[in-house]
């Protein structure tokens, strides 16, 4: 602990904070304290409710229950303008910036009030702040020219320049950073702590928590399951246990001694570019065989989405080649679909849901064959088939007539999973299958995946849930530092080994 800090001086306190979305309790009865000069890490798996909690503190959501106290007074933080006026700043994962403007103008947009502003003065302040915290930014540079790390620095400067900022919320800040930047970032966090800011750090990277956090709160399924401070002695095992709960790490209903021979899908020395033209994955070899489940582990943003898109023909390989059953394949979704490849994207709400279309109508897109009826589609027949289908029933798919854009995240997930399974694909590229699903449905979908592989489907499974990866995969590979690790046999590997690889990559 640094000296002279008044750790009893709290900046913000929540009591019984609760948020409900429909039938989902996203946050239940959360008590926590943000202290001055302290880094408070919020840990949790995907969908544990971290973001919801932070969005309540930043005023995006109004809580459904409980209170938030600041300076011994109950405060209302919704909408965000109120939260900002109270000194709460947030650095988002997706940056809220205007690419066509310079850094200076972007900052002016958020911090300057009134009709005119003094460019010189603001520029000076930007340079002051950025040199103080080692946030190298050029105020005159245009935002579209910046890489993600630089954009993040801009966001941080913006928050720091806002008047009266006391608490800064970082939403998974290191997911956009390269390893060298991470260290600098953590140092900056420490400097902010020295200067009295209260920092909330949302993350699921345990080593970062261990490196900088003074306090840790762990969320699981919307409930605060663990909280401790540095003095109590934090250990990685304890935190993992708190995040994962008592879920068993065993392989259910799965043969482990399968031998796979027939190659289904293969990437040979592939290099993949990201959305901004940056290289995301470099020179990798990857193979999945008939009937095999290959799990892909890695911290989020390690190139999972890009790799998945390449495996479905959505994204071009910058270098290298991709082969389906030994045949070179052009990046064309149609060809991949015809070859029996199915795809469940990591963001089905954005990429799969068609506003105003029913579940049934979604089913015939890359799922059930389009039943023809004269020039149209035989919807009645399709509705009957869907009703009778094993997949739809076991996944408790919502009524086929319902509009997909009215469904909750979990129901959307059920829909895209049903669609992928109903086709019995030869190759299935599936990202985060259990995201947003309750434990029961998660089990069901996992069982389906295992059965599918037994029928000969090659499955590439992207997941952040190590438990799931171990339960389902025959082989695990780890994405880290633009590389992919060698395949590890699930049966002879343990979670900590994979965890190490996720964080540090394969040692060379």
């Amino acid at each position: 602990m640094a000296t002279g800090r008044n750790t009893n001086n709290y900046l913000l306190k929540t009591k019984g904070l609760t948020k409900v979305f429909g039938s989902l309790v996203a946050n239940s009865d959360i008590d926590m304290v943000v202290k001055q000069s302290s880094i408070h890490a919020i840990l949790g798996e995907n969908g544990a409710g971290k973001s919801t909690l932070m969005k309540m503190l930043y005023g995006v959501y109004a809580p459904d229950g409980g209170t938030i106290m600041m300076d011994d007074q109950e405060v209302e933080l919704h909408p965000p303008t109120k939260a900002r006026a109270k000194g709460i700043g947030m650095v988002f994962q997706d940056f809220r910036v205007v690419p066509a403007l310079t850094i200076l103008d972007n900052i002016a947009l958020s911090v300057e009030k009134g009709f005119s502003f003094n460019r010189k003065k603001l520029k000076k302040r930007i340079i002051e702040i950025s040199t103080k915290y080692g946030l190298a930014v050029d105020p005159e540079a245009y935002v579209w020219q910046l890489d993600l790390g630089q954009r993040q620095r801009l966001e941080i400067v913006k928050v720091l320049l806002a008047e009266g900022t006391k608490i800064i919320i970082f939403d998974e800040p290191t997911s956009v950073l390269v390893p060298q930047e991470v260290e600098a970032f953590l140092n900056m966090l420490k400097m902010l702590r020295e200067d009295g800011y209260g920092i909330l750090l949302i993350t699921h990277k345990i080593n970062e928590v261990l490196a900088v956090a003074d306090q840790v709160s762990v969320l699981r399924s919307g409930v605060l399951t663990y909280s401790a401070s540095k003095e109590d002695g934090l250990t990685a095992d304890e935190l993992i246990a708190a995040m994962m709960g008592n879920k068993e790490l065993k392989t259910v209903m799965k043969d482990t001694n399968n031998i796979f021979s027939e190659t289904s899908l293969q990437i040979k020395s592939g290099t993949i570019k990201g959305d901004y033209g940056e290289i995301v994955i470099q020179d990798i070899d990857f193979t999945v065989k008939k009937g095999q489940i290959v799990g892909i582990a890695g911290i989020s943003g390690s190139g999972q989405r890009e790799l998945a898109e390449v495996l479905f023909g959505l994204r071009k390989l910058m270098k290298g080649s991709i082969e389906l059953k030994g045949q070179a394949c052009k990046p064309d979704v149609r060809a991949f679909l015809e070859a029996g490849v199915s795809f469940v994207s990591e963001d089905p709400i954005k990429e799969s849901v068609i506003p105003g279309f029913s579940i049934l109508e979604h089913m015939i897109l890359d799922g059930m064959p389009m039943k023809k009826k004269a020039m149209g589609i035989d919807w009645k027949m399709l509705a009957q088939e869907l009703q009778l289908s094993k997949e739809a029933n076991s996944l408790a798919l919502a009524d086929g007539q319902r509009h997909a854009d009215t469904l909750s995240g979990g129901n959307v997930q059920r829909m895209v999973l049903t669609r992928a399974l109903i086709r019995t694909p030869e190759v299935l590229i599936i990202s985060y299958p259990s995201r947003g699903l309750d434990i029961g449905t998660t089990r069901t979908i996992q069982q389906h995946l295992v059965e599918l592989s037994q029928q000969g489907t090659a499955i590439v499974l992207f997941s952040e849930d190590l438990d799931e990866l171990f339960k389902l995969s025959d082989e695990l590979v780890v994405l880290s530092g633009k590389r992919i690790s060698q395949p590890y046999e699930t049966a002879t590997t343990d979670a900590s080994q994979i965890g190490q690889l996720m964080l540090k990559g394969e040692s060379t």
Partner: protein
Amino acid sequence: MSIAATITKDNKSFLARNQSWMIQSAAIIAPFIVFGIFLTFYEVNPIELYWSMVQTTFGNLYGFGEVLLKATPFILTGLAAALPAKAGLVNVGGEGQLAIGALFATWFAVFYLDTMPAMIGIPIMLLAGACGGAVWAGLVAVLKVKGKLNETITSVLLNYVAVFIVGFFVHGMLKDPNSFNWPFSPEIANTLRLPIINNTRLHVGFMIAIVLAIIVWFVLSKTRLGFKIRVLGSNRLAAERAGFQINKMYFWVLIAAGALAGIAGMIEIAGIEGRLRASVGTNFGYLGFLAAMMAWNHPLRLMASAFLLGMISVAGNKLEIFSGLPSSSVNILMALVLFFILGSGKLVKK
């Protein structure tokens, strides 16, 4: 109604669905109220004017014919906006596509079809018009698909080019030698004029527009192709992931839209004007776009909104006689309609 709407009863409450319907109706009615206030300032009784609009329209066959006549090009250029809109495209190029369609149609009529009987000549002229519009939309399509250029911008800009191209021809190769140097084409042969319904000026072009609107509706809501187009228009990413050939679809939808607007150009020539002027169909493209927006891009409702715009256009003349206000003051009404439609669009989405 599309399949999506008829076979699906979503869980939205009855009230919520009616609310959106009410907002839409209010958006149609409100501009008339605002324009009425404007008229009172100029000492024109809006109720009298609106009543006389209704009377002219429904009072006698001639007036009704006039409104339908005005509505005809709006239906077609409206389709040229509505169909691409369903695929997620914004085609503001109906104006230029109509002009080039009229040019092609006149060219064929003047140089190749003047001795043909109507049964052969008119269909060929129609095809020529459709080709002209398609060629012009084809430019937008190629720029979109190959050049990744935004179709909204290119289609608007090409409107200006189209007008000048028509001007070039009517001042040059297509100029009527007997016109005393006026810039217009020779008159097309009488056999090529569209047959007219007795006691009106209404020609069969109106029937063509209605039939095409029904075809577009049928394709969009009842066929597999239409289903795919709507998927593409509602979520491009989903269409991509379903393996649709998006560029190909964009291309052909734009071509079809251009052909529809081109047919409107042919109908203007063969149905009304009889010869090509540089001013052919001025504003019809934009008004069609407006009609499409008023109909929320629904081909059948488009017929109603085009009819309403037809009524407003005819009322322009009425207004001049009535009040001494210039007939172009109905443009204010049109603009108000557009404003309210755009504004209510936001409300309905929420």
